[in-house]
């Protein structure tokens, strides 16, 4: 899947900007999402690791 499928018929520059926009949105969503997961389960995982034998 490329920018050409993302915005069919748009100019190459607009398609390229759409690809960059999609990647940026994915990056922000992953940063926020994994941040929330880390906050929620991080301490528990470290405690389990520390106690594991």
């Amino acid at each position, binding site marked *: 899947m490329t920018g050409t499928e993302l915005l069919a018929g748009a100019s190459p520059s607009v*398609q390229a900007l759409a*690809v960059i926009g999609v990647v940026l949105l994915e990056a922000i969503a*992953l940063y926020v999402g994994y941040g929330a997961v880390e906050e929620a389960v*991080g301490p528990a995982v470290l405690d389990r690791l520390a106690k594991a034998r």
Partner: protein
Amino acid sequence: MIGSIAATELLGLGPEIFGLFVAFGFMVGVFFGFFGMGGSFLVTPALLILGYPAPVAIGSSMAFVFGTAAIATMKHHDAGQVDYKLGALMFVGISVGIELGSRLVFGLEVLGIANVVVGVAYVLLLAAIGVLFTRSALDTDDDDGDDSEGDADEVPAIARKIQSYEIPPMTTLADGSRASLWTISGVGGGVGLVSGFLGVGGGFVRMPAIYYVIGTSLAAAVGTSLFGGLMSGAVGAFTYGRAGVIDLGIVTALLVGSALGARIGSSATAYVDEDDVTIYFGLMLLVASAAVGIGELSSWLSMPVLDRLSFVLLIGSALLVCAMILYHGALAVRRTRGVPGSPRRGE
């Protein structure tokens, strides 16, 4: 209009290959989070070995660099370690360099030798960086007991020497030091050329160049280098995106894995002594260099078995180093958290 996606595929990739890229992205993310670089220069060769054309491999790698650098910059922004003015000034040189690098790739593609030339350049680059890391790790072993690490706020002597040549126009950096716009543009152009030609973020060149040539503190060099990676990734993704060669399925799968891996790798730095795993990283780069070389031989000799060997070597060595980081991390967590009051690394 958003294009339709086949039900059995994830963004144009089969579930197995999507999963493979997520796992590979996780490994790359662990390296990036732990070492602060090394995020992208494994991606392009892996895509080349998997049979993707050079422009697709490089373009997708550049888009991945942009996404990874965006995530890393958000983290360093929170710590106040990004000199946005310096990063913005480097932007012009980076843009010109990437444009030249990508034109070179497309020119070589027309001649039908892009994959060979990019592959050979990778063999040499990975080997050179691998030797540097391995030697550095061995030297550190020899110097055991000497913990004299450089001051993070100190500007190296060579940078102070370069700053002493005041070639106008001069500009003031965020930390109050001054640098010539010619130096900044030259560093940006050189890094951009490497990025555009090889499809790498160039952090392993950019960070030392900002630190040793432009002359900032180490912390600012790392943060600003990541911001530079964001920009070079954006410019590269735009350049290759205009040609319609970026595979969003590959980029998304790699990002899903790398964003998680980078968090874990970055957390591991608080527990693991970098010297314990640096030698594995150096050796992995040497194996990766051999893997890309074997992949090129496979094309020349038309021996698919060499292609498989090349892929196994590349993934296997990356998997080994990733496992070493996680293993040493788990051991260190048990050691430091198991004993109340034990100091963590860097504290």
